[in-house]
């Protein structure tokens, strides 16, 4: 197996794909958005319960490839109890890691996705959930797409 494949499909990613965390709907979400990747048909919804500007709870639903599911799962775990501003900063950092900078220790566990950078066609899979959160926080009603 190539080392790029090992970097892409790390155990932690495969684990989150098999057992996604926060894979549920919220009782009283204050924000929600739908994300869609028209290239592969991946579709997910993210729901957020805000307390002031703190993300008190966050869940997601949908179907997609291992990268998009694991990314959504790990994102929800990461964003819980972050402020809206911190969440947006994390999104920027995450996107920069995938498209420009490569591994970023500041991102903690999320840095396992650095390997996606070697698979340009898969970057949208990893960022779909993040784009959706961004849209939810911005209060957008229309589904966001990765295009």
């Amino acid at each position, binding site marked *: *197996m190539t080392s790029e494949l090992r970097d892409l*499909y790390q155990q932690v990613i495969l684990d989150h794909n098999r057992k996604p965390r926060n894979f549920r709907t919220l009782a009283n979400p204050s924000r929600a958005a739908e994300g869609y990747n028209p290239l592969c048909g991946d579709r997910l919804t993210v729901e957020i319960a805000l307390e002031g500007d703190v993300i008190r709870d966050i869940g997601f639903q949908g179907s997609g490839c291992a990268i998009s599911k694991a990314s959504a799962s790990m994102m929800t775990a990461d964003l819980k109890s972050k402020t809206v501003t911190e969440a947006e900063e994390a999104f920027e950092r995450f996107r920069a890691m995938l498209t420009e900078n490569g591994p970023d220790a500041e991102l903690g566990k999320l840095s396992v996705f650095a390997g996606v950078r070697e698979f340009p066609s*898969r970057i949208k899979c990893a960022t779909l959930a993040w784009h959706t959160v961004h849209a939810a926080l911005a209060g957008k009603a229309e589904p966001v797409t990765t295009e």
Partner: protein
Amino acid sequence: MKQSTVALDVERIRKDFPILHQEVHGRPLVYLDSAATSQKPQVVLDALADYYGRDNANVHRGVHQLSERATEAYEGARTRIQRFLNAAHSREIVFVRGTTEGINLVAHTYGRRTVGPGDEVVITALEHHSNIVPWQMLCEEKGAALRVVPIDDAGEVDVEAYERLLGERTRLVAVAHVSNALGTIVPAKRMIEAAHRRGIAVLVDGAQAAPHLRVDVQDLDCDFYTFSGHKTYGPTGIGVLYGKSDLLEAMPPFQGGGDMIKSVSFEKTVYNDLPYKFEAGTPDIAGAIGLGAALEYLEGLGLDRVAAHEHALLVHGTERLSSLPGLRLVGTAREKASILSFLVDGVHAHDVGSILDREGIAVRTGHHCAMPVMTRFGIAATTRASLGVYNTREDIDALVEGLAKVREIFG
């Protein structure tokens, strides 16, 4: 038929396709994505280079030598295509950009003239988006209804349901000859007969059929047939619309411009004869010549032999893939061509595609521009391996080995 008794020499064919001889991610390329676009033999590359290097000029315009050569080559390609489709007349062959444009041309001209409020256009549930959306747009514009013939769990068109759908208000039937997502060979001839008994015209989307089956538009008796050059071993940007001459004659032009006119004044324009009425502006001359070379190549191999070779590979691939635990073929029609669409239990098609790519294997993953087909089967995406003349049993075996890697990673 004697030709078909001698098997294709695939090793020799592979030498004709320079692109196949490369490594991808350090592995020999295994190209199993011909349904997306086929690779091009050297004769096609040479035809393009020769045209631009020696004969390049505009067609139907100049009195000079180069223009005469370019026109002769361009019209020669049209005659080649006429023979390829067994059309009655070369004026029935219209050059377009591809299948999509061929369908849109018919929707905008024949469709707009024929379909009115309350009328119906019939398609099937296995169509590519390009044979759905133009009809939806037409129906929306005209206040007409789009009726869809169901398919069964194998991916076969329900022909009885189709015949029941044909009614007083049906104005047009548009159907794929071969499904790009499932590989089903659609019983086009029978469907055309049924439509004609009620005086309804039929367009056949031949994008996935022309490279794999012998197409005879007179035998099919279809009213329109369209296919793409780039899936038929020719260049991108060129395709063909065949139409029966009486229908084409009666249709208004599609686009206005140069070459599609006999005379123009500010008071009145007289349109040109067929097929030029439908070829406004400078056409893709090189593309047409390249497509002519591709079809000459394909006919040189013998379409019956090509079909037999690909059928044997399809049978081999079906057997090998079916034997893999956790793998399910999507599209198991009795009559199929070229396509092996499948699901790997617990693994999304995109992950399968990425892993296969690292093994040097090119497949298509996703909805294959046939989202209603995915919906019909309750899935989001499949992995699709599709075959061409240059594929071998070893390519199928490499795919099976690649799928073992998928299992290795995903468990």
